[in-house]
């Protein structure tokens, strides 16, 4: 019997502390055949199980160009993430996926890419960033604008340092006013404000944004002001999901099932939806 709800077993190969209550797990499929056959595209998501507690939905935060493992990043919030948080290296979790659509990187060849993320909105964007960096010659300028409430809340600190040091990436980091430390060398200000100062050119460019709903709202307004149109801007919509396969009835925005038709949309696509956010 083909059981669409049955997860694959994955082993936690490594754990990284990212920020207070935020961790990344590097996961490897226990079954060798599954491990070798597994493939996905940047933007897809999965359901991660803590046995005895249930499943939670997160994006796959690693790039499909990095084979042999997947990475997820989550914040300890509720029952399932609390259970996942208590696991240690060598522990077992469940994974179902990949589900949903993806960012159309092949359509972006030759274009400049601007990544705009806030807080824990960086993990889904990270998959696309590494995917683009691993195919660097396919794209024009790459800009990353990333902000969090405080310096401590910035995730992937090591990678931010790496991206900041690369000559082929322009990284702009910011923290909300009041969130800076005496040593902080980045900007202070909200992501949309910092984005407006950076004023990325709309011509031949694509923007990818993810973050809190309020940030996305103002990022879209800022990009519009800077002359971007809604077809150039991509985001990923996160909604509560239980099945991930279009059946449990939770993630729909009006008549759109995010798990099946999304989670990746252009701003133009989002504006066509019912106001069910």
């Amino acid at each position, binding site marked *: *019997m083909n059981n669409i709800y049955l997860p694959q077993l994955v082993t936690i190969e490594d754990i990284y502390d990212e920020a207070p209550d935020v961790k990344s797990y590097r996961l490897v499929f226990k079954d060798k055949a599954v491990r070798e056959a597994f493939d996905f595209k940047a933007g897809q998501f999965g359901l991660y199980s803590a*046995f005895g507690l249930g499943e939670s939905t997160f994006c796959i935060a690693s790039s499909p160009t990095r084979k042999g493992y997947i990475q997820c990043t989550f914040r300890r919030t509720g029952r399932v993430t609390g259970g996942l948080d208590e696991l240690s290296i060598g522990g077992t979790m469940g994974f179902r996926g990949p589900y949903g659509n993806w960012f159309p990187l092949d359509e972006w060849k030759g274009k400049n890419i601007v990544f705009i993320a806030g807080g824990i909105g960086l993990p889904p964007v990270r998959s696309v960033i590494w995917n683009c960096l691993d195919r660097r010659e396919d794209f024009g300028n790459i800009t990353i604008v990333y902000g969090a409430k405080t310096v401590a809340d910035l995730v992937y600190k090591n990678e931010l340092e790496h991206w900041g040091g690369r000559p082929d990436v322009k990284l702009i980091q910011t923290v909300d006013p009041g969130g800076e430390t005496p040593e902080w060398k980045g900007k202070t200000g909200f992501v949309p404000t910092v984005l407006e100062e950076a004023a990325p050119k709309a011509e031949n460019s694509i923007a990818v944004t993810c973050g809190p709903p309020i940030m996305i709202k103002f990022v879209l307004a800022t990009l519009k002001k800077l002359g971007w149109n809604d077809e150039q801007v991509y985001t990923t919509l996160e909604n*509560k999901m239980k099945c991930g396969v279009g059946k449990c009835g939770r993630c729909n925005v*009006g008549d759109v099932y995010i798990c099946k038709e999304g989670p990746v949309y252009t701003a133009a696509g989002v504006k066509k939806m019912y*106001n069910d956010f």
Partner: protein
Amino acid sequence: MAKTVEKLLKKENLDKLITSVKADGGRWIAPVTDARQVVFKAVTKHEDMASDYILARNSYKEVLFPQTEVIAEYSVSREGSEMHGVELTPAETVVFGARPCEAASLKSLRSVFTWDFIDEFYTKREEKLIIITVACTKADEACFCTTVNISPESTEGSDIYLKETVSGDYLAHGATEKGKAFMAKHGNTFENAPKDAQTKKLVMPEEINGIDLDKISERLKKTGHYEDHVWAELTRKCIGCGACTYVCPTCHCFDITDEGTAIEGERRKNWDSCQFDAFTLHASGHNPRDTQFKRWRNRFMCKMHIYPEKFNSTGCVGCGRCVRVCPVRLDITEVMEALSK
């Protein structure tokens, strides 16, 4: 047009039929009076079945999509955790005494459980299901099938469609190949029908004049209706109990939860309801459907827009169960009427 062959199922032969189904390891589910309510339950003899009923209080959807079921089992140990799926091998299940409205709901449930990803917990049960519908000779004020283009004469979803004869037997019409095969297999209970068999008059619920399905459909297609005051005004009295969703034959929402200890237990698929506030609540605290009218609006959209547009099926079959069970008398037909204006 070729005349359909009808057979006679005598009431006195029902026990023979039930016994024969059970002898093959099957189940016979029929409306039964239980604690003064008519509900679908397994029966072993025909005299246990209710005869004087309009509609069972629950829908037979639980035969296909149980209220709770185990989908996998887990164990956690120092040596490593495991999760195994359960194998489902359902027995033949005959649902006898369904009504044409609820039979028509089958296509909707099937569409959700089979688009792209196939939920075999559903399909394996449906493969083994025989729906024997009995056309209605009674209706109540909550019945509104004719308003949503279904009637006691509709055979969609029925494998075998029965009309009661004046003598208390049934004229049987095999409506699907599965139904015809069932009748052929149990040929000794389905006799040749006499040419002069008189059937009881079917009762057609009166169409609700103020409801115009085309107008509702046009209105729901435009995203702007989400801002209409009509939603909050008409559905404010909803207390979010979710009763409508549990009795509805097309409601399909479910939750997946683990039940057990830190060492072993089960993963279950349980009925859920889009009327509960935690249903869409994000981990961040944000809730896209944070007030009751938004949740009620979602259910209405699901029935009257998502099912018809996405799955080309009937989301609301007019069985009236939600109307009968609602503790605050929030009647879906009132909202349909308001949206027809």
